[in-house]
């Protein structure tokens, strides 16, 4: 599957199917700080992503002045 990440924009390829929660763990990404999106839809952590999926992992943390 192709995994697109943002801030900064980058892409990784994973050669197997995997559950959403496991994907975040494999990429060492905090589950509280990211959403996983497939075809514009939010997907739950137990969903198994197919090998040919295109996945966006979107960070949700924003900084700046408060």
């Amino acid at each position, binding site marked *: 599957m192709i995994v697109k990440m*943002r*801030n900064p924009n980058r892409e990784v390829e994973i050669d197997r199917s995997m559950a959403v929660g496991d994907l975040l763990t494999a990429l060492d990404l*905090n*589950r*509280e*700080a*990211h*959403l996983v*999106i497939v075809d514009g*839809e*939010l*997907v*739950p*952590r*137990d969903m198994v992503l197919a090998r040919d999926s295109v996945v966006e992992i*979107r*960070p*949700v*943390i*924003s*900084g*700046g*002045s*408060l």
Partner: protein
Amino acid sequence: MKCRVCRGPAVIDVRRHNANFCREHFIKLCRDQVAKAISEFDMLQPDDRVLIAVSGGKDSLALCDILDHLGYQVEGFYISLGIGDYSQESRGYVERFAEQRDLPLIVDDLPIDYGFDIPHGSKAARRAPCSACGLSKRHLFDKAARKGGYDVVATGHNLDDEAAVLMGNTLHWHTEYLGRQAPVLPAHDGFPKKVKPLVRLTERDTAAYCLLRDIDYMVEECPMAEGNRHLLYKSALNDIEVSSPGAKHSFYFGFLQRAAQRFAEAADEEMPAIRACSQCEAPCSSDLCAFCRLVDRATAPVPIRMMQSPSATKAKT
């Protein structure tokens, strides 16, 4: 995963509630949490005119959507900060959102209206960019609220924002700031009432809400925020949250319930006398308000020796 409410397929887990939700019931959860915060902290009255500070990010646009849904009279206020492409793009998100939803929108432009932008102005004034940005936003929100006669200014500060600020203030024992950290700041001495209706929602909640409500928001991070200490605190708190779901909520709401009042009394005693700025007449504690000082420094002519190239300066010395 099944929705706790309807047992249909869930799209998101919310571990601090120990529950999963489908689209419909997650949206309802977010709206209910905002309504609860408004009621719990007496933030808004039904007939209040509310000015919402909008940035084009997930929090402020979710706030507009939720307050509008809850029936409040809301208008948006956007400040173009002159941060290159970032400001142009964020303004586009705000204007498209406002147009799609018939949201009345006021726009201030820092470079056009005040003659400086955040990257250059903060450097000239020798302030951190986020400090100059925050100061400018607070001043201009207050000014817009006074000018437009709004009852309340609402901002998109969420649970992560408030917990991160609390962590920073606690680590450094900024007791004066601890005394003023609250989800509602009452109107006083010419300052408008300010409320934070999203304090019961995390950043993950507001991002998911936008996604599920088809709200197109600016995902890119402000380039000036890199290395900001609040990002460090948020990251640390999220590491704790993974192992201890609900920790951020307990930290912040525990502070409000058990500790805030102890610091508030001391902060009230230290509150300086308020008078009008001699330049812009905004309420402030000195002859010239902090924003006017920032404008003066940011727009001051650059001394000739600073305009010379480093090599020319070196050659002279």
